[in-house]
């Protein structure tokens, strides 16, 4: 076996020492970390760029939409005001009290033996809903008070079919000295004054057929 003598062992040891130099290794490690940091910086830069461009696009969209939305809001307010005014007007028209049916019922109820001298009807003011009708007249019969009472009850029942809360009450009922001739008979008379309170029927109960109801008022009056 041949004998080898390494005459470069010192050179090799120096080379090994140079390669294992902690300063050199440290610098290399730092360089790797620095490259990692730079890479991470670029990743974050790209992310930030994406987010910022998204934000810029959204801002641009918003700046285009915002004036339109403000104009739309103004227009919506205008339209809502118009619609609400229209609805209020329709409600007011629908909630009017119709006097023609009252006159019609009075005309149908008053018998030949009664002459009306005064009729006054008034719609309520403010938030009240009760309408008042005042009827004055002369009833003539053998028992004129009974005749007046018959008229009062007839008005009560007839008006009760078309209106709510009907109440007909005598304010006055006085015998009169006057004698009238009717159908060749002398009849005693009584002066009366009846106050009637009535309300329009709840619209929900008559809403099923509003047109015929209105039409019938006209036809009935005619």
């Amino acid at each position: 076996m041949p004998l080898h003598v390494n005459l470069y062992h010192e050179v090799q040891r120096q080379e090994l020492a140079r390669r294992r130099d902690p300063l050199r290794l440290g610098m290399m490690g730092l360089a790797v970390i620095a490259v990692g940091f730079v890479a991470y910086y670029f990743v974050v830069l790209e992310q930030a760029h994406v987010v910022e461009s998204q934000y810029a696009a959204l801002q641009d969209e918003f700046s285009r939409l915002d004036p339109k939305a403000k104009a739309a809001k103004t227009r919506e307010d205008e339209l809502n005001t118009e619609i609400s005014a229209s609805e209020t007007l329709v409600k007011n028209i629908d909630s009017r009290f119709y006097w023609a049916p009252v006159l019609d019922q009075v005309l149908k109820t008053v018998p030949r033996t009664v002459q009306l001298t005064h009729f006054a009807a008034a719609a309520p003011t403010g938030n009240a809903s009760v309408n008042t009708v005042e009827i004055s007249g002369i009833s003539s019969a053998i028992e004129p008070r009974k005749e007046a009472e018959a008229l009062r009850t007839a008005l009560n029942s007839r008006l009760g079919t078309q209106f709510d809360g009907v109440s007909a009450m005598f304010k006055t009922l006085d015998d009169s000295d006057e004698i009238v001739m009717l159908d060749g008979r002398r009849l005693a008379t009584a002066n009366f004054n009846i106050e009637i309170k009535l309300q329009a029927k709840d619209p929900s109960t008559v809403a099923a057929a509003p047109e015929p109801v209105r039409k019938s008022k006209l036809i009935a009056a005619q």
Partner: protein
Amino acid sequence: MKLDQEQIKKIFLSTLLLIALLYGYFAFLLGPLQASEKAAAAGIDTVTPQIADAKKQINRTSQLEKQAPEAVALLNNLKDTIPDGEPIAWFPPKMTDFLKSHGIDKSTTHLVSEGTDPTPGLKRMVWAIDIPKVDFVPLGVAISSLENEQPLTTILSVTIDATREDAEYQHATLTISTLVKS
């Protein structure tokens, strides 16, 4: 392995440089970038619902715009039926003509009062119509027609009195309110 004086100095300086670089990296490069990203993200969170609201508002208005003509048609139609000009000039003749068309030849109409109405562009006027001589039935027909044909008119009161001169006829007074252009 022993570090010589020169190497220790290098390590110390390198460490100082590293700290300075790390500070610069985080404080002047990564920090502002992350802050701007965060601000942009917060901005997105703010602006996204605003955009959604704006779109919703525009859609809502366009829907309303489609429904509105139908809803306000009645209001506009009724407004169109009101003549232009001072009501005192056109309303009394209108009522006289209306009553004449129902066989009531003599009537006078006076303005009683005027007030505001919640409907924009309209005001309410109250009138008294005096009919010195009328039969009950034609009056009832006229009142019925008025109530059916004039939706802007409301009869506030009706007074009918028997006349002493002629038992066949009555004296009537109507108080009516009507909406006119303001």
